[in-house]
């Protein structure tokens, strides 16, 4: 992969000793930020440094679902913009991102869940995002394979239907953004590990890498699940983050039977059918922090049980592959986008949990604006780190997510 071949995004370049901006992490948020920095703000002297290869982490491990039916006034507009950017970027990058606008069906299994869905839908509609509450029969019309009978563990009461969402080919986004960024002059350095960040008088001065030192006065750490650990290790800044391993898997390919993303909170299961015909499904997480990305039989069994209850036609289907990635969870299920505060010139973008894929385009756009101006744009201002000590946590979940015995 790293041999004599020419990368698809352009020529390999030598790592220089100085850049205007250094971005640590070669995932989607970094690539998108670099792309918008170069294209929208004319900041082209940018190096992305990636320890492994671009798209190694969450970018290539998520279940590719995109949607904008979040819960709070701050999150909905951000995710809406991210969703609206897929067709725009497909054109702009001249790269087929394979946005399949199939819509999301979020199943509700109790009257309490239906009530919560009503509020989420009202928020979405207020922000101009299409989302409807439908009953079980209407859900069955949309997805005939659904089991809406009373004889399952959690009978389906209804669903939240969100037509603007769907699925995007995540690898294509990595490649498209890499090529787009490189076209505007951004350098991508794979197999280059960030080791330390040096500061002087509260300002960023340089980054030490496995390939030498780079002087710069602007650094962004945007390394997905690895961000929190790196930020503490390199700069001593603690974050309200717990890093957990999340698993996903695909079945053998079958004929088209699922033309929407179907998800269920009660069953801890979400599924969609890939263009190849596989049922791709993701699960809940073990609740103790770890960086293993280990897969386990426990979740294969869990997914099989869940899917065979609410989509009984999948009984007997075989799982072909299973993998895992990291989710950096915050207590309020909302990300942290901050910078130029704790240390001048230091920016960070993390805490997306398992929402990092669906948000990467908008997050990149606004982080680029943030880094160009030195001041947070209104859209992402509320996502600062200070909100935790000011008790201004966002209500993305009704109850705080804390990886303690209460959860």
């Amino acid at each position, binding site marked *: 992969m790293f041999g004599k071949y020419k990368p698809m995004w352009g020529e390999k370049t030598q790592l220089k000793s100085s850049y205007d901006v250094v971005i640590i992490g070669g995932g989607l948020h970094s690539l998108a930020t670099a792309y918008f920095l170069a294209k929208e703000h004319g900041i082209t002297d940018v190096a992305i440094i990636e320890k492994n290869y671009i798209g190694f982490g969450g970018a290539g491990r998520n279940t590719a679902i995109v949607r904008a039916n979040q819960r709070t006034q701050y999150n909905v507009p951000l995710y809406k913009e991210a969703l609206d950017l897929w067709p725009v970027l497909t054109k702009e990058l001249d790269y087929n991102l394979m946005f399949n606008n199939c819509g999301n069906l979020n199943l509700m299994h109790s009257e309490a869940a239906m009530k919560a869905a009503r509020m989420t839908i009202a928020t979405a509609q207020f922000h101009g995002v299409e989302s409807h509450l439908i009953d079980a029969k209407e859900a069955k019309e949309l997805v005939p394979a659904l089991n809406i009978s009373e004889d399952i563990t959690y009978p389906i009461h209804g669903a939240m239907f969100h037509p603007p969402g769907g699925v995007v080919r995540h690898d294509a986004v990595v490649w498209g953004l890499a090529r787009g960024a490189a076209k505007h002059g951004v350098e991508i350095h794979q197999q280059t590990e960030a080791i330390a960040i040096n500061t002087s008088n509260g300002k960023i001065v340089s980054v030490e890498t496995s390939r030498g030192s780079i002087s710069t006065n602007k650094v962004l750490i945007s390394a997905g699940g690895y961000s929190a650990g790196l930020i503490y290790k390199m700069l001593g800044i*603690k974050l309200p983050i717990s*890093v957990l391993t999340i698993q996903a898997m695909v079945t053998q390919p079958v004929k088209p039977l699922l033309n929407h993303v179907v998800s269920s909170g009660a069953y801890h299961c979400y599924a969609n059918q890939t263009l190849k015909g596989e049922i791709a499904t993701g699960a809940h997480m073990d609740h103790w922090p770890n960086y293993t990305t280990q897969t386990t039989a426990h979740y294969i069994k869990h997914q099989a049980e869940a899917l065979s209850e609410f989509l009984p036609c999948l009984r007997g289907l075989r799982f072909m592959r299973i993998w895992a990635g990291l989710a950096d969870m915050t207590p309020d299920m909302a990300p942290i986008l901050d910078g130029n505060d704790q240390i001048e010139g230091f920016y960070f973008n993390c805490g997306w949990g398992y929402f990092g894929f669906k948000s990467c385009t908008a997050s990149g756009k606004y982080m680029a604006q943030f880094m160009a101006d030195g001041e947070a744009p209104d859209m992402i201002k509320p996502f600062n780190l200070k909100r935790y000590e000011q008790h201004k946590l966002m209500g993305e979940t009704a109850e705080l997510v804390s990886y303690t015995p209460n959860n």
Partner: protein
Amino acid sequence: MSLTITCPVCGKRDGYEFRFGGEDKGPRPEEDSLTPQTWCEYVHLNKSVAGVQKEWWVHKDGCGSWFTIYRNTVMNVEVQESEACR
């Protein structure tokens, strides 16, 4: 995910019998002169170490004890204190 944890009362048991109780942050801060920063640090902020950390667990489906162990978060295995502090 395969994990065994050593309970001070019941000995080495399957990790699923326990619940994680957070990174060890020392004693709860004193109520007098408590600032929002100190409280936030105690309640929310983590080091997210990729390596060995000291952390709390409770034997939820067992004896109910609270205790700390050292665990390598990259390997997901419990390690001895002597090994951790080396």
